[in-house]
């Protein structure tokens, strides 16, 4: 029995309706996800961008003999309540370090304390009307203004909001990532090469494979406990250091690198291996000369994504003590350091209003670095993608 076109189109109508319903549902889901993303970015930018600006006051500094002990003596009296405590602390130090400064004077932009800074940015503040009027006047005359916040990008953490910066956390992150990469990349890639190209397919290697896949799904805080128990307590690696943080994160990154490397190796067609064996290559020569070059873009992409994941990790680092107050920027592997997410975590717990924007600003810096890393991974893949 054959159907007429009418009967068939009757049936088709129902199918078309169903597929268009599904299409709308999936587009709705995508739209919702996009909406949340936009909201998140808008909120972060809204809260975080002010952190990249800071109120400064232009003033004449008289480096008198008195000022070496009390910096307030160097500034016009009415400005003293406006200037940050940090500046009052560092000016005498500078003068003691450089005796030739005494007796001279210069015009400088000084940091303004966070209350006035928040007032200028229109955030919550505790200034009375009189103080507000005084600041408004100085803004009119150009003596006080919002400028690019070099302090935020140029210094370490501080308990004084206006002088807290993210540099020590950025340096700490870089040092930690160097350790992570140096450990997890070679070990991960070699493990994957062994498992994929050399290991026989037996129970033992299957067990290893299952365990590696499970390892990738383990809560990251457990890696922190492992790092604490083994690296710090057993091997005595210095606590809070980029070394121990990097080693801990390397454990976490290893499965990601192994899995992505195996996928990359598996995507190299067997015909290339056969060609290599056909001309009398040994297994290692086939891998080194023919398979690895083709798999490299995939391996790099996977490693960068694993690294980006490690870079955003906080939990295991809390356990190994990397959530530390680090005011000084020091690029060593064994001294205490902090990393960006830990720094954001610390700031988010500060009660002062000015730290809200520091928190959001820190998130923006972290996100920028992560997105650039991921973009770099995409570019790398596109650039070295070869056809065969």
């Amino acid at each position: 029995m054959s159907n007429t076109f009418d009967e068939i189109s009757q049936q088709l109508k129902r199918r078309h309706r169903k597929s268009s319903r599904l299409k709308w549902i999936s587009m709705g889901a995508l739209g919702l996800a996009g909406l949340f993303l936009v909201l998140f970015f808008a909120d972060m930018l809204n809260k975080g961008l002010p952190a990249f600006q800071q109120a400064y006051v232009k003033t004449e500094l008289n480096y008198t003999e008195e000022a070496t002990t009390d910096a307030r003596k160097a500034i016009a009296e009415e400005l003293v309540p406006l200037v940050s405590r940090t500046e009052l602390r560092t000016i005498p130090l500078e003068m003691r370090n450089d005796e030739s400064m005494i007796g001279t004077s210069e015009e400088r932009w000084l940091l303004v304390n966070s209350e006035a800074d928040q007032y200028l940015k229109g955030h919550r503040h505790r200034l009375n009307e009189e103080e507000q009027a005084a600041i408004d006047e100085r803004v009119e005359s150009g003596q006080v203004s919002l400028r690019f916040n070099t302090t935020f990008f140029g210094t370490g953490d501080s308990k004084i909001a206006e002088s807290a910066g993210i540099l020590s956390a950025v340096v700490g992150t870089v040092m930690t990532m160097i350790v992570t990469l140096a450990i997890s990349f070679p070990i991960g890639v070699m493990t994957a090469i062994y498992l994929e190209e050399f290991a026989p397919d037996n129970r033992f290697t299957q067990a290893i494979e299952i365990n590696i896949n499970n390892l990738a799904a383990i809560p990251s805080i457990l890696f922190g406990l492992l790092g604490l128990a083994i690296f710090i307590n057993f091997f005595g690696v210095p606590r809070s250091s980029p070394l121990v943080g990097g080693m801990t994160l390397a454990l976490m990154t290893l499965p990601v690198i192994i899995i992505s490397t195996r996928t990359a190796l598996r995507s190299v067609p067997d015909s290339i291996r056969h060609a290599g064996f056909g001309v009398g290559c040994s297994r290692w020569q086939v891998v080194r000369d023919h398979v690895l070059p083709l798999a490299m873009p995939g391996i790099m992409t996977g490693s960068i994504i694993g690294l980006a994941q490690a870079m955003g990790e906080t939990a295991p680092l809390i356990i190994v003590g990397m959530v530390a107050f680090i005011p000084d920027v020091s690029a060593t592997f064994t001294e205490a350091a902090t990393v960006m997410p830990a720094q954001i975590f610390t700031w988010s717990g500060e009660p002062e209003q000015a730290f809200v924007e520091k928190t959001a600003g820190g998130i923006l810096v972290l996100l920028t670095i992560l997105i650039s890393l991921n973009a770099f991974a995409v570019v790398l893949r596109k650039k070295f993608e070869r056809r065969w």
Partner: protein
Amino acid sequence: MNSQAPVMNGQQTPAVGQPYTRNDTACHDLSFRVRDLNLWYGKNQALNNLNIDLFQKNVTALIGPSGCGKSTFLRCLNRMNDLIPSVRTEGLVEMDGLDVNAPKMDEVALRRRVGMVFQKPNPFPKSIFENIAYAPRMHDLVSRKAEQEELVEKALRDAGLWNEVKDKLHEPGTSLSGGQQQRLCIARAIAVQPDVILMDEPTSALDPISTATIEDLMDKLKEKFTIITVTHNMQQAARVADYTAFFHLGEIIEYNDTKVMFSTPAQKKTEDYISGRYG
């Protein structure tokens, strides 16, 4: 034909179990001697008691329907089956009086003497020059740049590709056409100066003109090399092969001089196959 030594060119080759020496007059021009070869993929037996002698400086064609084991047998000759973990072989495959499956035989050394060309052209994703120079350099046949250039030119000339690619040696091998890629693969195989070249359906992915070029090439190459080719195409076997072996269900049904085989097949199955009744 099974389990009894094949008679070739009116000469009786040594029977199964008989000692084999290189000076044996009956087989001085032997390339491979295969006795009682059995092969299993896991539990499935793919080759069943094969006995065959393959001759030097000749083209031998292995024909038969799909899944008859001809490619599997070909890969036994340079131990490419070792790459498949589930494969188990028994029996004797001898080259130059040496058992290729012996523990002390290095498969790398074996594949250096027994080159291979695959069904689908598979040049390395490197330059044409590198495709050919890579293996000889790896085997320390050449080292200096001038030697490499000389060898690349010679291999490409032998493969009849030189005139087409001499101006673009540093372009990727994958940029060539399918037929050129296959000749590049042949050039790559002969660059290491093997004794034998195994060809696994070398023309099945190619157009008729490229196929004809490669057939001509095989005719020339047999002056220097022993060529063993698997083909689906009976006309091709009739055109290029000096000897033909007909495989069916993992057994060698008939093995003879090509002309004899195609004019007066001894077995009914062979006759049915070559006259197109099945396969």
